[in-house]
Structure formats: C-alpha cells, structure tokens
C-alpha cells in the first residue's frame, strides 16, 4: 500500500474505551476511557503517561492484539481491526524477545518476508538494515548471545526492514547506553526527514522534549494534555539567579532574600535563588553588596517533565 505524505492522519483514535473484567467484582476496570487522538502524518508524536496510564493498551488496540470495548482506531484511514492496516507499520515492543536459537539475519530476513518482500530481496533488505544499525557483523550470531542493547537494535531492524510508513515504538531507549540513545535519536530524526511518521512511547521525557513535534499525556486512561511541547509547558514569571561565593559569608543575605520572597538552595559554594522577575535585580544588587559574585540569571522554564507531573497530579486530584 503506497502512502504519501499528503494522505490524511497516520493514526485516528475515536472514543476509544477498553474495559477489563475484574475477578470477583461487578465493576469493570477501565484501561482507556473515551480516548480521542489524531497523529498527523510525517511527525514524531510522543505518547506520555505514568505506569498503568493505558499507553501500551492503546498501542495493542492499534495493532489489533486486543479489541476495544467501544470506539475505533484507524491507521491511514484503514480500521485497525483489518489485518491490512498493519501493512505500513513497523513496531518495536517494550523489552523485545525473539526466538533464541535463530540468528540475527534469520530473524530480520523473516520479518522482511512477512512484510511483503520476496525471499531473495528480503535477505538484501535485512543486510542493509543491519548495516545501518551497526549489527551487520553480528548477523550470524544467535539471538541468545546478544546483549540487551543489541537485541533492541535487532528489534528496530525488524521494524524497519519492511520500509514502514508508520513506526510505533514502545520504550525504544530501554536497554540502550547514552551512545545508543543518541544514535536512535538521530535515526528517528532521519526517518522523519524521509517523511515517516513516528509514534513514540517513552519515559525519557528529556529525549521526548528534544525530538517530538507533538506530545499527548495520558493519565488513568484519559487524555489530560495534547499539543506541541512548547504549548504544554507553562511560562513562569520567575527568574533563577546563581550567586557565587555566598555560602561561606555571613547570613545577612538570607534576610534580604526573605524580604524579597526569594527561595534559595545551596549549591556547593554557590547559592541558587528563585525569585519573581521584578525582584531579580534588587536581589542581585543586595547580594553583590554582601560580597557575592553574579554567575548567571535565567528565566525559570517548566520542563516537559514538570508539565507531565503537573498534568498527572491535576488529573489525580480531580
């Protein structure tokens, strides 16, 4: 199935609900409640949520591993319950496992065949993908002998071998060292440049903030936030002031800080102050007067992790 960038959304989820029976209880447990979500084509879309929020359940419904109780999901306009909907998908599960007596090349080649390539061309495709991921030298190694990080790369290879238009990755950085994570990040950005859509579920919020075009935050099965990372984080009118050499001086500066409602935290020989923007410069001039040295002044910015925690706490409180 040929999919172009001008086609409709990659993923459309409408009023999706999944209920599970609870033994010895009348009331069912809801894993997802009335979820509505659209993932545009050609973007990196982050899917965030605490453990048990329903992220993996949503992904399983998209892949038709489980059936929704109500609502439906579509992949490039095709119902997720249709087996053909998975044709343009490459999937990397959380903690991937493969038959341990098969070699790397055998597994990736098999996935190439299952994606629609002939037996001859699937071998060529598999070797190319393994070269791109730095696993070509291990192509004849049994999967039981690979490290966790290498197994993760093989999982990415099995997803990429079919040249999918939509990549669904569940915790892809799990098991990767910092170098591996950077390589994965670069790979995802290069795939996006080639027009692929990436649906990414991860707990590494700093990485999500760096590469995602849009994010959705799930909590207790419901969507609590969606949009560009810059739109989700809230602006703060506070400033962070770092003053050096203050910690060992007299404590009079603490009174000045208290007077200007500035919170402070010792950071070795330095002190980090969080203060309202208007009070920043009066505070700085008083602290310099006490003998401190100004190191930096930066506006306080909520990170994606802060925004995520805020949204989840709000939802739990509600």
């Amino acid at each position: 199935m040929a999919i172009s960038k001008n086609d409709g959304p990659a993923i459309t989820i409408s009023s999706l609900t999944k209920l599970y029976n609870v033994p010895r209880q009348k009331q069912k447990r809801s894993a997802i409640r009335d979820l509505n979500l659209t993932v545009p084509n050609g973007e990196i879309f982050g899917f965030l949520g605490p453990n048990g929020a329903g992220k993996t359940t949503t992904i399983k419904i998209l892949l038709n591993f489980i059936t929704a109780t109500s609502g439906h999901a579509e992949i490039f306009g095709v119902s997720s319950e249709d087996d053909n909907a998975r044709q343009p998908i490459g999937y990397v599960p959380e903690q991937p496992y493969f038959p341990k007596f098969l070699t790397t090349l055998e597994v990736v080649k098999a996935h190439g065949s299952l994606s629609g390539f002939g037996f001859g061309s699937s071998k060529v495709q598999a070797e190319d993908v393994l070269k791109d991921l730095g696993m070509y030298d291990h192509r004849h190694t049994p999967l039981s002998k690979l490290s966790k990080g290498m197994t993760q790369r093989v999982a990415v290879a099995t997803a990429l071998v079919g040249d999918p238009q939509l990549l669904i990755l569940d915790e892809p950085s799990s098991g990767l060292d910092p170098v591996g994570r950077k390589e994965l990040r670069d790979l995802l950005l290069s795939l996006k440049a080639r027009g692929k859509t990436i649906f990414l579920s991860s707990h590494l919020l700093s990485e999500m903030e760096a590469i995602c075009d849009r994010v959705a935050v799930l909590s207790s099965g419901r969507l609590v936030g969606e949009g560009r990372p810059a739109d989700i984080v809230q602006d703060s009118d506070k400033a962070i002031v770092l003053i050096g050499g203050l910690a060992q001086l007299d404590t009079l500066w603490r009174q000045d800080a208290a007077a200007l409602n500035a919170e402070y935290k010792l950071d070795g020989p330095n002190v980090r102050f969080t203060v309202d923007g208007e009070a920043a410069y009066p505070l700085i001039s008083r602290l310099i007067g006490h003998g401190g040295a100004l190191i930096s002044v930066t506006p306080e910015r909520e990170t994606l992790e802060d925004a995520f925690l805020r949204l989840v706490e709000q939802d739990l409180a509600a």
Partner: protein
Amino acid sequence: MTTKSSLKNAFTLISVILLTGAACSFCGTCRAAGNVSTSVALDPDGDDPRTELLYHWQDKRFSDEEQHQILLCSALILVVSVGGAAKRQIRLKKVLK
C-alpha cells in the same frame, strides 16, 4: 483479494472435500475390489498361513465411522471458514459506519 473471491475459493475447496467424502461413502468400488483380491489371494484349501491375516485386513476396511467423520470435519471447516469471513466483514463494515 476481495471478500467475494476469498469466499469463493474457500467454498470451492470445501465443496471438493465434501463431495469426495460423500462419493467415498456411497461408492462400493473399493469394497468390491477388496473382496475380489482377497478371494483370489486365499488358498482354496485354506492352508495359506496368511489367510487369517488377510481376513483381518479385509475387516479393516474404511469404515462408516471414518466416512462420517470426513463429512463432519468438512461441514465444520465450511461453516467456520465461511461464517468467520462473513462475520469479520460485517464487523468491519459496522466499524466504518
């Protein structure tokens, strides 16, 4: 492959199996052939040491029970294949509405 051609292929395959099984049940050729070969092989004086075994194999004919099982199995395959495909198509149409 469209639904119609999938159903057609499944129906054709199952029909062939069903008809073969049914023809098997009612045709008496193998029984007649078995009787002839057995009677020819038997020593008329009954001295052939394999007589008893030949009768044993003669009894071990393709039985009615096995013929019934072929028909039952064929019917099951037909019902499940065609019914399952139809149910899937109905469900997909309902979802798209």
